[in-house]
């Protein structure tokens, strides 16, 4: 066991997997000597050399397209996009290439690659260092999306992502990169993609979240218990594609109340998908409207980010509204 934060856990996962499997290659901007702007790849170049820890030209579509070509030829590239806000030049290579090769070739050409990228607000990064665009990729057939919420998960999910035969977008909640440490086992363990985790059991309201918002949600659940005596069940999705619908269903059919929490803009966000899912399948169990607590349909602000982002208080207000409906 190593006591480490999420940065350390991801670094450990990359190091161990690169030792285990020589086809794993890390590439991106500043991933080499610099160790990445968040130091996630720190020290890897000293161990694995500049060919396997490849500092690339500053070109996101290039990074992803290059990784696609490597993956087609049997490598397992782990490409870093420095901030997910910079991912759009690569959208074509992700959406139309990486995510489509298997299908368009009738299963012959496959792209086992991971795109790692820090996402989300809470670091006063302003519009271009704060966004949370998972719903756009969740709307894309052929790519999986994992979002860890703690160091232990980060390592276990990343190992699953690297070993997955299909492309995986691995979204790292940079707000909690160094927020806390946890005991993380050295060596082999994986957390399967598509399995949610019930992190708090409860009977009155189901709360669903992922990534850094999970902690906001947990804080709200605690406040609801302490201040209002409301018992919340909290589900940590861990991966949003594939989605663990079964675990959500087990919970809402028990509680009859549902709130999802995500920091992305509201309209057509992943929370909208969760709301639709619950409404379509379990509406007859519901005792109150299906709610979502989200960011707003504005560009991401800087000074006002604390108001833009869901807070425990905003989530708590919805819990109370749901419970008292």
């Amino acid at each position, binding site marked *: 066991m190593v006591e480490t934060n999420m940065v350390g856990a991801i670094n450990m996962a990359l190091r161990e997997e690169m030792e285990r499997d020589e086809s794993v290659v890390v590439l991106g901007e500043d991933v080499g000597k610099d160790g990445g702007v968040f130091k996630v790849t720190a020290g890897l170049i000293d161990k694995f050399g500049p060919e396997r820890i490849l500092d690339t030209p500053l070109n996101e579509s290039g990074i992803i*397209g290059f990784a696609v070509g490597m993956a087609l030829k049997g490598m397992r590239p782990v490409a870093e996009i420095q901030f997910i806000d910079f991912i759009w030049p690569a959208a074509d290579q992700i959406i139309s290439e990486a995510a489509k090769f298997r299908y368009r070739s009738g299963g012959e050409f496959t792209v086992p690659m991971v795109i790692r990228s820090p996402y989300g607000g809470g670091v006063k990064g302003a519009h271009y260092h704060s966004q949370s665009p998972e719903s756009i990729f969740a709307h894309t057939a052929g790519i999986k999306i994992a979002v860890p919420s703690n160091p232990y998960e980060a390592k276990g999910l990343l190992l699953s992502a690297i070993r997955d035969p299909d492309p995986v977008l691995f979204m790292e909640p940079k707000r909690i990169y160094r927020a806390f440490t946890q005991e993380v086992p050295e060596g082999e363990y994986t957390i399967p993609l598509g399995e949610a985790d019930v992190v708090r059991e409860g009977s009155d309201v189901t709360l669903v979240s992922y990534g850094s918002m999970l902690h906001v949600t947990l804080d709200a659940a605690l406040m609801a218990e302490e201040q209002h005596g409301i018992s919340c069940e909290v589900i940590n999705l861990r991966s949003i594609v594939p989605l663990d619908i079964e675990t959500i269903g087990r919970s809402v059919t028990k509680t009859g109340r549902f709130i999802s929490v995500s920091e992305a803009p509201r309209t057509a966000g992943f929370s909208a998908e969760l709301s639709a899912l619950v409404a379509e399948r379990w509406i007859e169990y519901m005792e109150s409207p299906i709610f979502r607590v989200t960011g707003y349909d504005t560009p991401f602000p800087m000074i006002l980010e604390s108001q833009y982002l869901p807070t425990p208080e905003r989530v708590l207000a919805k819990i109370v509204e749901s419970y008292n409906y």
Partner: protein
Amino acid sequence: MKVQRLQILDDDGKLLNPDLEPNIPKETLIRALETMVQVRLLDEKGIRLQRQGKVTFHIFTKGQEAHVAAALALSDDDWVYPAYREHGIALFRGFSLEDLVNHLFANIKDKEKGRRLPGLFGSLKHNFVNPSAPIGTQIIQAAGTAYAMKMQKEEKVTAVFFGDGASSSNDFHSGLNFGGVTKSPVIFICQNNQWAISVPFRRQTAAENIVDRAKGYGIEGIQIDGNDFLAFYTAVKQARERALRGEGPTLIESITYRVTPHTSSDDPKAYRSEEEVKKWEQKDPIKRFKNYLIGKKYISEKDYEKMVERNSELLDELIDKAETLPKPGLSTLFDDVFETIPPYLLEEKEELLEFYKEA
């Protein structure tokens, strides 16, 4: 920038410069000609089938058949990323005409399972990568594949085809830049066929030649007569040798011409003159290569006629057969999204099958 254009055969197929004539076995050359003939016949028959409503689409190769030379210059283990007018490379490597015809009909034997426009096919077995349709995306991928070959310590190269239109794409820039920086064994082959649908080459770049860009990326560049089989072969062979010596990528600008419409959906009368097309038809790559082989007494005009006839009949048979085969079934819609179908997709699949009551 004035550049030298490599040309070995003149417009009639006579050797311009016998010193540059590559040494290729007779049988290989004849097989290459046959492949070029097959590709052209596919054009003639493909567009007819499209007009009859029997296939959904046709994409032409006519006038660019000299690309088959690249298949001779490369090893079969080298990877090729086609643009979408390079069927001849797959065929030369042994991809069967039957598979190709089944693909055109998008029938149950189509490897792409009826998901692609006819002509957009690949074959892992033949190291011939399944192409995209957004232009230029394969250029950077090829650089990545070449880098992988270097890391895997394989004596292989990656060759990638694209058109003059693609030279304007961001992935052209990414590909040449990443390829150059990493010194990967990749050959960039621009089939400058003068037209990107209706937009002429002069509207793609203010540079005089595409090959001029090579210098800016610190890589080697060569311009060739792209309708000259021997020049094509020589340029690719030299680029391959350089790449295997660790000297990095080469940009080959092949000057050619799309004598046909862009696809079955295009009518070039709206944007270019008949005279221009006629002028280029004089440089027909098959005519030139055939005359070269006749000049070497490897074949006769009669042999050539028989070759065309034989392949035409073969194709007709394959077409008749392919036409009768059923289309892929409903359940294949959900195959190959991922290696293993996740529960939510399985649910969608069951919903669809239930609605249409198909097993």
